């Protein structure tokens, strides 16, 4: 009890210190970490090349972050996604018996919560799909959508019990299949123009989304307002699957591990 009070006292002291120091700096007209007002050439270059209907070599992604992630430094994101898939498969192989566990918690929340959760789960899943579908034109994308979907699944395991979902709907074979499918899609999507170029004897590059000097391959679609790059939509979908699977595996391993420690 005394240590709890001591911890609370330290936390309050830290909050009070932060507020007092911030107010003092604000009154003096200073910033603890100054903001830069200098001209940012890289930012201007990104804005110029991410979406410019007059430039045929533009990335055609109105959400500049999507253009940077899946076009300008797409190769980096490709490697990063593969690292994430590898980490998830590593965790899944080490703990796959957790997802087939016979003795899982049967505790479920009240009937009222279970009924309202049905509506919320459908709505949250729709929002996550919308984040992915509009990731290339609005803030959001595969990562945010995948994180939301994983949160929905984990919330569902808490509301309807681990036993009713894990092993029946959430199987390690299913997650492995989804990750395999995502990897295959990623490889096809990232190397499509290089493969086409190889067979047609025309230049084509790995992770080429739009036309490049010397190679005019590219896939655009009209979304009602703009011509938008189609490849970025596919990459967002892949990231959605990968992040959702990864987070579900991570959280389930931790939750079931904790449950085993207490009960089994």
């Amino acid at each position, binding site marked *: 009890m005394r240590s709890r009070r001591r911890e609370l006292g330290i936390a309050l002291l830290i909050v009070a210190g932060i507020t007092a120091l911030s107010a003092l700096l604000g009154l003096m007209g200073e910033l603890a970490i100054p903001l830069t007002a200098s001209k940012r050439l890289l930012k201007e270059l990104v804005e110029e090349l991410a979406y410019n209907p007059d430039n045929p070599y533009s990335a055609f992604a109105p959400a500049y972050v999507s253009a940077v992630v899946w076009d300008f430094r797409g190769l980096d994101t490709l490697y990063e996604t593969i690292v994430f898939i590898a980490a998830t498969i590593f965790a899944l192989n080490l703990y796959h018996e957790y997802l087939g566990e016979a003795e899982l918690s049967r505790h479920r929340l009240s009937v009222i919560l279970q009924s309202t959760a049905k509506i919320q789960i459908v709505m949250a899943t729709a929002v996550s799909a919308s984040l992915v579908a509009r990731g290339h034109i609005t803030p959001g994308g595969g990562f945010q959508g995948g994180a939301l979907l994983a949160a929905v699944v984990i919330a569902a395991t808490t509301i309807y019990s681990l036993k009713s979902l894990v092993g029946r709907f959430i199987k390690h074979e299913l997650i492995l299949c989804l990750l395999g499918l995502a990897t295959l899609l990623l490889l096809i999507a990232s190397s499509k123009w290089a493969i086409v170029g190889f067979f047609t004897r025309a230049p084509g590059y790995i992770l080429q989304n739009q036309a490049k000097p010397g190679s005019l391959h590219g896939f655009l679609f009209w979304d009602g307002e703009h011509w938008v790059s189609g490849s970025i939509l596919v990459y967002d979908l892949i990231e959605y699957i990968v992040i959702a699977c990864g987070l579900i595996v991570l959280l389930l391993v*931790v939750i079931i591990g904790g449950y085993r420690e207490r009960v089994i």
Partner: protein
Amino acid sequence: MNTLIALNIIAVSMIVNIAIAVYGIVKKPSMVKKIISLGILSDTVCLLAVYMGFTATSPHPPLYASGYGAGRGVDPVVQAFVLTAIVIALAFTVFLATITLRMYEVANSTDLHELLKLEIASEEIEQLEE
């Protein structure tokens, strides 16, 4: 004035968060606390990067189709880097969490000091046996 105080609260909180996270990583022997501290550190550094991308003259989201045209949004480059950093931090957390779980299964503890004592004890037993 209010904007300055709000920005200062964010900035000072980030500095304090980094200090607490480094303390947790270096000083706390429990692997679980180290993972939590690492999470705090990576999230704070991500927030710091987003903060650096903010400019008072262009506080809009980095989008083309927002009615204000190009050049008025915050820096999209740092936001893209942060996205990468979050994914890598997540992969790293998956790795550390699984290692810690395995450590608990084998040694029945996540305390590094206790594990070190166990290792020293097992070495002494081996030496005695020899």
